[in-house]
């Protein structure tokens, strides 16, 4: 399924706090018009896409993320051009109430009546430089946010229902040359005390309590690391991708060697995402305009498929040997999606339906795909 944002766009996020409806947010990039945030609703049963538009007048959106606790709260990183300077800022916004849980207006109406976001607070970065991204504490109450600005990593506390952002801690990279963070993710493990960041060819892990470096994977990729993601079910595992066209899987306890390397793309890999519940499913988007869904069974939390409970075993003893014979499964590429015609800069799983994902290419085309049915049943059964 496809839809056009009709603008150039790079930023995509699922509405994290929403667990019922399938909803994605897309931020547009335009230097000439008012930028928008498109709220894409996908009705799974009827295969209908609804779109609502929010105006984001402050600038073109480079990154967008939503609060895990409050459906209506989101954060963006945007470019503000003033005089002959471009500065990337970050801010937390609230969308109008009626859009929080999707609208049932017809698409025609929504495009005509674009509504405006309500600014909650700025993440003040005047001292720190350009904001690369904002990430929310995944399990928390939506009060903690990490933002990456040039070579600083900043931990913010959002107070008074997010209307005030207080800098709670910061750390910065010191070194030669222009060190700049490209991307970061908050680990869902260890009580959400770890954040991993990518800068140049290096991956770093940070402890949010002390704001100090925990681990460092030097030369994780041959070239720039573009993105990373934590395995949601295996606490030390993370995936990274970069300009060397590779996707690498790491065990952070061993920083010298990747656990596994994939080399399926033919250009820079911009995005890598683990499926939230079935971590063998890994999604990657690349500027070769392809999206690849891989099945990394061997390094997933369920290397031998779904573990059958003891009760089930007694019930289905005749099924047991059959299942055993199928395993262990091989790692493979499940599907390559070639619907995009420009570079794909973002891929995301839906927060509501684990079998659904969206990908966004530069020309503004958003494609929603499902995991192949056969594979879905294979994983479930």
């Amino acid at each position, binding site marked *: 399924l496809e839809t*056009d944002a*009709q*603008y*150039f766009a790079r930023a995509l996020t699922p509405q994290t706090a929403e667990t019922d409806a399938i909803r994605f947010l897309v931020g547009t990039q*335009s*230097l*000439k*018009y008012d930028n928008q945030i498109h709220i894409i609703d996908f009705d799974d049963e009827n295969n209908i896409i609804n779109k609502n538009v929010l105006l984001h007048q402050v600038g073109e959106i480079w990154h967008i993320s939503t609060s895990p606790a409050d459906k209506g709260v989101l954060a963006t990183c945007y*470019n503000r*051009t003033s005089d*002959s*300077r*471009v500065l990337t800022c970050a801010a937390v916004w609230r969308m109008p109430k009626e859009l929080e849980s999707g609208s049932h207006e017809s698409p025609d109406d929504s495009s005509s009546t674009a509504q405006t976001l309500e600014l909650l607070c700025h993440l003040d970065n005047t001292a720190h430089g350009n904001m690369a991204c904002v990430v929310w504490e995944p399990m928390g109450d939506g009060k903690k946010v990490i933002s990456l600005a040039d070579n600083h990593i900043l931990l913010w506390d959002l107070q008074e229902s997010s209307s005030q952002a207080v800098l709670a801690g910061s750390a910065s990279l010191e070194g030669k040359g*222009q060190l700049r963070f490209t991307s970061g993710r908050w680990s869902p493990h260890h009580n959400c005390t770890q954040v991993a960041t990518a800068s140049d*060819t290096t991956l770093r892990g940070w402890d949010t309590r002390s704001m100090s470096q925990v681990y460092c994977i030097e*030369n994780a990729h*041959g*070239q720039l690391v573009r993105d990373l993601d934590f395995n949601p079910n295996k606490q030390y595992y993370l995936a990274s991708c970069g300009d*060397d*066209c590779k996707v690498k899987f790491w065990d952070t306890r061993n920083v010298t060697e990747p656990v596994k390397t994939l080399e399926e793309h*033919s*250009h*820079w890999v911009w995005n890598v995402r683990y499926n939230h519940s079935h971590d063998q499913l890994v999604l990657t988007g690349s*500027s*070769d*305009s392809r999206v690849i869904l891989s099945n990394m069974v061997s390094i997933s939390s369920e290397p031998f498929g779904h573990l059958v409970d003891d009760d089930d075993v007694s019930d289905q003893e005749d099924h047991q040997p059959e299942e055993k014979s199928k395993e262990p499964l091989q790692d493979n590429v499940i599907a390559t999606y070639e619907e995009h*015609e*420009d*570079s794909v800069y973002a891929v995301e799983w839906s927060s509501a339906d684990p079998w659904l994902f969206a990908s966004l290419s*530069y*020309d*503004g085309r958003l494609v929603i795909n499902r995991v192949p049915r056969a594979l879905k049943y294979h994983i479930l059964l």
Partner: protein
Amino acid sequence: MAAGPDHGSGPGDSPEGPEAEAPERRRKAHGMLKLYYGLSEGEAAGRPAGPDPLDPTDLNGAHFDPEVYLDKLRRECPLAQLMDSETDMVRQIRALDSDMQTLVYENYNKFISATDTIRKMKNDFRKMEDEMDRLATNMAVITDFSARISATLQDRHERITKLAGVHALLRKLQFLFELPSRLTKCVELGAYGQAVRYQGRAQAVLQQYQHLPSFRAIQDDCQVITARLVQQLRQRFREGGSGAPEQAECVELLLALGEPAEELCEEFLAHARGRLEEELRSLEAELGPSPPAPDVLEFTDHGGSGFVGGLCQVAAAYQELFAAQGPAGAEKLAAFARELGGRYFALVERRLAQEQGGGDNSLLVRALDRFHRRLRAPGALLAAAGLAEAATEIVERVARERLGHHLQGLRAAFLGCLTDVRQALAAPRLAGKEGPGLAELLANVASSILSHIKASLAAVHLFTAKEVSFSNKPYFRGEFCSQGVREGLIVGFIRSMCQTAQSFCDSPGEKGGATPPALLLLLSRLCLDYETATISYILTLTDEQFLVQDQSPVTPVSTLCAEARETARRLLTHYVKVQGLVISQMLRKSVETRDWLSTLEPRNVRAVMKRVVEDTTAIDVQVGLLYEEGVRKAQSSDSSKRTFSVYSSSRQQGRYAPSYTPSAPMDTNLLSNIQKLFSERIDVFSPVEFNKVSVLTGIIKISLKTLLECVRLRTFGRFGLQQVQVDCHFLQLYLWRFVADEELVHLLLDEVVASAALRCPDPVPMEPSVVEVICERG
């Protein structure tokens, strides 16, 4: 005698006389005689039909009528002829008369002499009869006398016979009585064989007559002496100082003396063991930790002559001596041989293991040959001990290890070559001067590897030489050739070569490019050469040298070639990536570090772009050294003249549209999408073909795509955009000639400029003519 009247028929045949020839005439005479003796009928019939026999005018016919004849003559012939006939006839008559006379005279003489002879014979016979009578009477007398003499001598003859018997018996008795002393003497003199023979002869008799006291005594004496003898023999046997033949003799004597065979054979083996162990110890000493290290050939020679020879002797002696022991005895010997043989093999293997590191194959093969040859004799003698099989096994094992060793050697040689190449590649950089060309280096590497392979093959080939004793074993004829040499050594090496080469592709430190790109290029070409020619050449060589008779499946040439090709492809692709990365980095840094918003109006092409073109040219030269040109799409020759005016007025317009007509964001995408529909998707890191153009295309694609992505991440001021325009035009001018399809460069550069325009809040493109001027100036 009177012939005329008597021979009445004769006178008339004159006319035919002159024609008749001499034999005819003689036959005629015979005919007439036969006629006379009444044989005429048969004879006449037998004669070939001449003139009619009933013709009365035929002078020789039976029915000749003189009157008719005469009448005929008178009537038919003239006078002259008649006269002639008459004279002729008279002459014939005379001749016949004289013939007749001679015949009669001769026959008469013969008759007379015969009569005389008969008379004489009658007289002689009568005399002989008388003498025969006298002889008969004399013979009768002689017979009579002879009978009388025999009768008289009968009695005396019997007595003499009896006396002779007694004499023999007495001699035997005398021997018996003398036996003890003789034995003692023998024992004292050490003539044990003689003693044992005496004893053997006497034994039975003594046994038989032992009830007689005197014999009893002798027997006792003998037994005592024999016991002593046995003791002495044992003593000698045990001392074991003497060699195997003496021992064997001792044992033989002891056996003859009726000693228990079982015990003897135990003891025999024990002694043999002692001796052989001595040999083994000396061998081991040669092995020892700090040996004077005799070479392996000498070692196996020692082992062969000392131990194996000894073993052979023991086995032969044993089998001869204890043949009566049957299978149990043979089994004992086999076990004995097996055990000692095992220890010997262990020693040999230790020695051979020391040899593994060494390089000289011929010596080793000769040593193995000796070793194997020596063991064939005991092997044949003691099939049950399995010595020959064990020896063959050792030889096989050594051969296998040798193969492994050679494989290692080849690998090391290959790595050595690579190191040399690296040094050669690194050196000219320092000197600042071109060293040996890539093509030359490639040829060096290829030839050195090939010569190494050939050397290895030659070395290994020694194992299958005809004169080597084990070369006709099934292992060496079959498995060694096919699995060992062909698969293990050659195929293994080629595979490992491919792997080594491939490992350069996934070296972890890819960032710095630990391997110089030129090396990648060189290896790629090497692998490709292997694919096209060298592999099949090497394998053919191998197959020829080692006539493979084994049926086991071997890796076909095509598989290897495919592997080599894949390696070559990967290396080349990696080369493209590495070189592309170098240029990409340059471009990326140049885009990222510049402040595009506040840049000044472009006056020049940026230095980095010139650098890009320079580097690309350098790569072009480098690749050109090793790879062919390749095919490029035919394009209009003046394409370098193309400027950005073309698309900035047509295609580009679509992209710029939003800035002028704010209500049409829709059109932007529509247009760009339509544009994309007509241009193929560009696979940036696509597989590379084996030619220069393809390689360069790959590198340029990677670089330009990087430029595109970087541009998209920035925001440009008006002059920033114009600078990009200038840069792109410059690239356009110089890069098109390197790629297969220049349209590709256009497309990518178009896209770069379009993206830059899109990222520009105030997109005012530069005049194409100005762009051209700047580029030409720069």
